[in-house]
């Protein structure tokens, strides 16, 4: 098995898996019927994308594990998602802020992944990018609305952006698997996305009448499996059925 490729794809897939699970928590609890459906749709898009990655990972692993086993049955330290996507739905501004800060990255990342020499990965990226373009449009639009809305919505949006900001730098950290895959022309060099990312994000925040946080201190660890306290709770829910009734099928 190609360990670097395996870990590399898990890193991509886990971001969407955990973000999808977070958004899924809002099903039936969205602030309005329409936004509830929109968030659930984005969640479903992400789960669809994740399936393609995990099917591929299962093939690379080449053991008895299925896509479901790999997606659902790892331990907390074995999840490689960035800390940003596991942050809670504190309020709608946090949900939108998290989505926006991830979408801008996700879109730039997929545009590069389309050029991968690994044909499966480039095909997946090609399929996902339209969905993600819409996610980015949706979340940017809401950041603009809330930032440029009432005093209350602006304050909440700013608070969410300030809180989530410390999790953005990790998006551009390279793991060992990253470096190896970039060298082979398979992976995306995320360090090269950073400038574009902060330019895009800052541009929209200013347009939304919000302040770009100046904090230079950032959180990290998710890509190496060191997570915030939130991931354990997410996995408890995500893995509940298989932990309670091992090997159950339906």
């Amino acid at each position, binding site marked *: 098995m190609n360990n670097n490729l395996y870990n590399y794809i898990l890193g991509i897939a886990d971001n969407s898996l955990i973000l999808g699970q977070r958004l899924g928590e809002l099903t039936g609890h969205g602030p309005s019927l329409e936004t509830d*459906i929109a968030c659930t749709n984005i969640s479903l898009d992400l789960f669809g994308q994740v399936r393609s990655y995990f099917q591929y990972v299962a093939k690379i692993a080449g053991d008895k594990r299925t896509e479901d086993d790999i997606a659902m049955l790892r331990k907390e330290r074995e999840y490689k998602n960035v800390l940003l996507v596991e942050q809670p739905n504190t309020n709608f501004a946090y949900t939108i802020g998290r989505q926006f800060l991830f979408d801008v990255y996700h879109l730039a990342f997929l545009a590069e992944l389309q050029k991968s020499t690994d044909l499966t990965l480039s095909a997946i990226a090609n399929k996902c990018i339209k969905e993600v373009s819409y996610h980015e449009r949706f979340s940017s*639009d809401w950041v603009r609305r809330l930032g440029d809305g009432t005093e209350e919505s602006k304050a909440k949006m700013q608070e969410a952006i300030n809180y989530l900001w410390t999790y953005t730098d990790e998006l551009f950290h390279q793991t060992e698997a990253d470096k190896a895959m970039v060298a082979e022309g398979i992976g995306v060099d995320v360090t090269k996305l950073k400038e574009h990312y902060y330019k895009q994000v800052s541009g929209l925040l200013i347009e939304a009448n919000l302040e770009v946080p100046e904090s230079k201190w950032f959180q990290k660890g998710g890509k190496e499996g060191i997570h915030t306290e939130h991931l354990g709770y997410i996995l408890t829910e995500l893995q509940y059925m298989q932990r309670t009734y091992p090997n159950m099928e339906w």
Partner: protein
Amino acid sequence: MSNKKNWPLWEIFVRSKNGLEHRHFGSLHAADAEMALENARDVYTRRNEGVSIWVVESKNITASNPEHNGEMFEPAQDKVYRHPTFYDLPDEVKHM
């Protein structure tokens, strides 16, 4: 979101495929036209139902008054000769 109850109502029209006309699909709440379009996309076209969406704020629609149905519609009821039923349509002609 405290004023979400004040969001105006929008009527949603969706064209299911090219060549067909837009049809009324339903209504939803949104703060403005752009949000109405995005909401309509998520509420009404997530199962691949459409290729084009129109949104119209409900207040801009002038509706006939049901109380006037008598004078509005009944006079047409006994005038079957106004239907083009005297022509044979070839099978190939669809959507008539």
